[in-house]
């Protein structure tokens, strides 16, 4: 029983068997992403009431907060698969980590952009050195560093491992960076500019955010699966099954 379980687990850890699985799963995750985002937007725009303090401008948080959650979550997932790839020496986990980085960086960018557009009407400036925005900016730098390091190394196995060490160093550092930025920001501006002041969030607002976050999550999975398929084809081009796959595509 246990043995057969282990067997099926390792079966899908080979790029050859994961490639068709990813191809089969990807449309379903994409469909789920569209459905959840549509539901989230409906809740966000047609169910959730107007915020008493911020007016309609608060509706930005339905993408801002889920994007910020995803940006941090994806870095952790990236660190996890990097660690698995480093310890177990499985190529597929490293490929997944590589495939996650661009999507994570995009969500970080979205969180920063929407944060700026939310800050302008709420705080009166496009950019505030608020702890969250600052941490998010540094997170974007970490994503860019990871991608730049992997892009600069020609040997794919070395790129995987070097990226994995960097991702793990980043995972250890993120809480430290977040804590230090928090400390720094409370020291420099006090409580006058704080997002915590939003006192009672309507249940529908929270629901809209959660549904949108789920939608973004499904989107991330679909995008990562699509990217990992490209990576697999590129890396495994010397195998017969990729040659057969390309022959079938043409």
């Amino acid at each position: 029983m246990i043995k057969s379980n282990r067997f099926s687990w390792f079966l899908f850890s080979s790029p050859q068997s994961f490639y068709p699985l990813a191809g089969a799963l990807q449309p379903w995750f994409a469909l789920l992403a569209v459905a959840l985002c549509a539901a989230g937007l409906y809740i966000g725009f047609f169910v959730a009431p107007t915020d008493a303090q911020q007016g309609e401008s608060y509706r930005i948080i339905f993408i801002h907060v889920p994007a910020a959650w995803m940006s941090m979550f994806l870095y952790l997932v990236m660190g996890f698969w990097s660690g698995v790839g480093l310890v177990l020496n499985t190529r597929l986990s490293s490929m997944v980590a590589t495939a996650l980085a661009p999507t994570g960086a995009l969500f970080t960018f979205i969180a920063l952009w929407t944060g700026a557009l939310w800050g302008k009407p709420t705080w009166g400036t496009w950019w505030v050195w608020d702890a969250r925005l600052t941490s998010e900016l540094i997170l974007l730098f970490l994503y860019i560093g990871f991608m730049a390091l992997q892009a600069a190394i020609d040997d794919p196995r070395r790129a995987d491992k070097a990226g994995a060490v960097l991702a793990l160093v980043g995972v250890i550092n993120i809480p430290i960076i977040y804590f230090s930025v928090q400390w720094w920001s409370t020291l420099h501006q006090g409580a006058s500019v704080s997002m915590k002041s939003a006192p009672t969030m309507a249940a529908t607002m929270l629901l809209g955010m959660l549904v949108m976050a789920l939608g973004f999550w499904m989107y991330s999975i679909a995008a990562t699966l699509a990217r990992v398929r490209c990576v697999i084809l590129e890396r495994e081009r010397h195998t017969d099954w990729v040659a057969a796959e390309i022959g079938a595509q043409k």
Partner: protein
Amino acid sequence: MNWGSWQNFLAMGGYGLYVWGSYAVTLAVLVAEILALIARRRGVIERLAKFYAARRRNDETEV
């Protein structure tokens, strides 16, 4: 939430620029990623097809 009219919906209580600016850029970024992924897949298949064709030709001339 009842917006009444399209104008009200687009105006977002005077914050239309900020709200729709956020949503438009988010949509644009996600669509750009999807297009980039499609282009990358096409590019990979194209390149590998050429690679295999070249390898076949190479094999044939050697035989």
